[in-house]
């Protein structure tokens, strides 16, 4: 820290007192923030943690006077260096922005103007604050170089689309710090980036701000990340500050029940695979010799059932009473007993997919998105495919769903080559393998109400009549713990997690064997994510499901997966059991990924 600042060291740089922010909406005023308070000392890093809608961004935006036009500070004070700027004039706020308070916005993809060169956009900031000087070009290059852009002078002449996500975020950090502000507001600065890039950017931001003595207000949804980067945590919930204090102390000794909940379900801090209460109970029962013989009779009938029999009967409802019985089967970590244990349900051999990239003048170049990938998934277990964006993991999922034909290699489902399936056989295959997608906002048809959404697979496969289908939909909703009244609602009325549960119910409607989850929880808030993961885990134990779990988040992998395949640039770089990968990563890339999990090395 800057030793010269010792004089002002005990005066808070930013102090927010009893802040209230109100939004005027068509449904009347909404109090987005109430009684918020926080203090940032010079040079200090403070993190606001909370789920979406908790008011964390709104609070920070108020501090820089960037509330949306329908929002206003309806109470309290925002003291910057002792001056109340809560209701300061536009002119005064503009004076402060840039050289006193800087900002790094969330989405690096949309926050740079695509028609201007990077250098111009940096210069703009310098000019606005009268810091451009005579040789502004050199200054721009300097600022960009500080943010960690190699060859900054030439980079400044490039356009945003020539930059990767991480590079853009560096450029935004350069802009935010260009005028040497005393406070930098970083609104989820790395949420859109891969974990390894996230780590580098945050490391760099850390270094820069501590060199410059800049205070940072970091806004994040990730408790692990916040605890690792900030001295002080402020936990917000429903527009209020529920707990604040020293970061590590909050992490180790959370007081407020909400914080406790948050700490308990933070995936980056979890250390073992989820196990449901049921499984534990069942295990105890099995040990006591109370396991029902019915179980073993029922089991093959369910798991090995051809997709034509029980399902084409008037309804698949009769399967339901059997479920509690199956639920009693102990199945921790895929070590399922009975005939099916260890049997491979999905096998991928030497899978390769080449995309043709269109080049200039009709020339095209080949791009190997997936390159010689092999793995096999035993029935009833979870296989996770991990990798950063562009590693080809989603392409593998698409091929496993038979939505995309492989260029080479084969996918065997229950011993049958998927790629050769046609007509009726493909239709039956569709029943047994179901997807759950990443974006809960995109995977449900907004025109269909929930009943029609869940009923659709039953209708397509002509299962049951309208009455039995309705019954089945009710059961499915119950299975994913949604109230039956949800049936008449539309996707736009539900939250992301609720939509994801509906997507799970739809996937379960046909009693599939395999569910392919393509980043199924990455768009959700931490608590909701934990809830959905728990649900998936319980369903796996109840129904003997097999999951192929595509994700970029190793922290999630640890909670749900039995085996991991790590992919990089289309190739498999490491494949082993989850415990093995976490305790003994063999490849540099895997180590890098593990190391980048925020909060992983915090001693909690």
């Amino acid at each position, binding site marked *: 820290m800057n030793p010269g600042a010792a004089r002002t060291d005990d005066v808070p740089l930013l102090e927010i007192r009893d802040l209230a922010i109100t939004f005027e909406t068509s449904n009347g005023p909404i109090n987005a923030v109430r009684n918020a308070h926080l203090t940032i000392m010079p040079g200090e890093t403070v993190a606001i943690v909370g789920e979406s809608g908790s008011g964390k961004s709104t609070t920070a935006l108020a501090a820089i006077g960037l509330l949306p036009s329908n929002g206003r500070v309806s109470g309290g004070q925002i003291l910057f260096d002792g001056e109340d700027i809560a209701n300061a004039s536009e002119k005064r706020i503009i004076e402060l922005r840039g050289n006193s308070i800087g900002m790094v916005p969330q989405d690096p993809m949309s926050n740079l103007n695509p028609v201007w060169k990077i250098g111009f956009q940096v210069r703009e900031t310098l000019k606005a604050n009268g810091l451009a000087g005579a040789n502004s070009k050199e200054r721009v290059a300097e600022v960009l170089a500080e943010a960690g852009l190699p060859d900054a002078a030439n980079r400044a002449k490039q356009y945003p689309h020539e930059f990767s996500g*991480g590079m853009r975020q560096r450029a935004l950090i350069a802009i935010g710090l260009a005028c040497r502000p005393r406070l930098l507001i970083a609104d989820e600065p790395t949420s859109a980036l891969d974990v390894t890039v996230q780590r580098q950017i945050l490391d760099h931001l850390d270094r820069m701000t501590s060199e410059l003595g800049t205070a940072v207000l970091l806004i994040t949804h990730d408790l692990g990340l916040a605890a690792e980067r900030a001295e002080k945590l402020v936990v917000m919930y429903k527009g209020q500050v*529920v707990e604040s204090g020293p970061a590590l102390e909050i992490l180790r000794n959370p007081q407020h029940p909400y914080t406790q*909940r948050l700490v308990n379900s933070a995936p980056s801090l979890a250390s073992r695979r989820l196990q449901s209460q049921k499984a534990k109970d069942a295990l105890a029962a099995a040990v006591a010799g109370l396991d029902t013989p019915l179980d073993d009779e029922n089991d093959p009938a369910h798991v090995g059932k051809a997709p034509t029999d029980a399902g084409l009967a008037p309804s698949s409802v009769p399967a339901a009473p059997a479920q509690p019985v199956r639920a009693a089967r102990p199945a921790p970590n895929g070590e399922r007993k009975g005939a099916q244990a260890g049997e491979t349900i999905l096998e991928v051999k030497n899978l390769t997919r080449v995309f043709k990239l269109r080049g200039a003048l009709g020339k095209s170049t080949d791009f190997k998105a997936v390159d010689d990938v092999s793995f096999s998934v035993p029935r009833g277990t979870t296989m996770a495919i991990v990798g950063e964006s562009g590693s080809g993991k989603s392409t593998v999922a698409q091929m496993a769903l038979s939505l995309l034909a492989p260029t080479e290699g084969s996918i065997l489902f229950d011993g049958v080559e998927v790629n050769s399936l046609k007509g009726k056989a493909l239709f039956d295959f569709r029943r047994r393998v179901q997807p759950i997608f990443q974006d809960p906002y995109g995977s449900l048809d907004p025109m269909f109400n929930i009943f029609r959404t869940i009923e*659709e697979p039953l209708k397509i496969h002509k299962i049951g009549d309208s009455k039995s289908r309705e019954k089945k939909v009710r059961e499915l909703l119950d299975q994913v713990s949604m109230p039956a009244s949800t049936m008449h609602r539309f996707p736009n*009325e539900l939250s992301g997690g609720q939509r994801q549960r509906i997507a799970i119910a739809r996937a379960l409607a046909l009693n599939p064997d395999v569910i392919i989850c393509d980043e199924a929880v990455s768009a959700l808030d931490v608590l909701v994510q934990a809830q959905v993961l728990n649900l998936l885990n319980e369903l796996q134990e109840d129904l003997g499901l097999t999951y192929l779990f595509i994700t970029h988040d190793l922290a999630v992998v640890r909670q749900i997966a039995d085996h991991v395949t790590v992919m990089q640039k289309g190739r498999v770089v490491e494949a082993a059991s989850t415990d093995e990968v976490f305790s003994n990563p063999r490849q540099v890339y895997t180590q890098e990924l593990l190391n980048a999990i925020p909060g992983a090395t915090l001693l909690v």
Partner: protein
Amino acid sequence: MSEKLTPETDLTKPVTPVSRQGKTSSRVIEHFVAPLEETPLAAIDNVDETAAPLSLWADAWRNLRRQPLFIISALLIVLVLVVAFVPHLFASVDPTSCTLNDSSEGARAGHPFGFTLQGCDVYSRMIYGTRASLLVGVLTTLGVLVVGGTMGALAGYYGGWIDTVLARLADIFFALPLILGAIVMMQLPAFRDNRSVWTVVITLVIFGWPQIARITRGAVIENRNADFVTASKALGLSRFNALVRHVIPNSLAPIIVVASISLGTFIVAEATLSFLGIGLPDTVMSWGNDIAAAQPQVRNNPGVLLWPAAALSVTVLSFIMLGDALRDALDPKARKR
């Protein structure tokens, strides 16, 4: 994308596991805990069961209901529709019983807008002319929706050569000016000899479909790769059924908006063609024909021209206003998430 330009991570170097311990401050930081009563802990992600279920259309309707633009245009359109269906309720005078005695007479009791050169009642002709104008507008819009919608949906959904052929075809028609094309077309013997509402409608559809086709194609392309379409394919729905069941319903909003605005412009186009003498035959009463007939007299008896022209403007304006209101209500960006 530009991978070689942007080396994010050097993966050749071995990683030294850094232990990030978090930061501790030398300052004393107070540990604050809010009293639990202030923010009671709600269940995670519970469903709000109090609000009434709301479909997108219901949502749009709730939104529309409160818009003055929509209310005014809807009332006007309802009025125009009623007039078109039951004109005799609004005008007691027969518009075809014209006596030359009344030629170019001014307004008098029972004849509020005066008389034409032929001695016909202007008000009555305006009322009875509504049907033809509206009929052309509605039929043309329907025709354009069927032709343009189908072409656009197929082109956008299947892509490839179908798209290339259909999109170029649409471009060719798009390049032809409507009025010029219609003048040529209406002069063809088959059309010239059988002039009726239908010939006008066919001509307008032929030159009007590319606009809807473009809009539909764009909307379908936007939706064809949506996750819910992929999901339904993974459920076993055929490609064509996915188009009909999921893609088209989700593409309707912009199409409806454009269709309601074009309905107005088609009415104008009909009036223009009739004015030029190549639209509806003289035997059909229409605003365009009346405006054409009144044109020589515009200086000494402007009312004869102004009244049908005003009716035309109000009708067209109300359809355009309706389109605008619908655009606001159906705008996907305005929808709550």
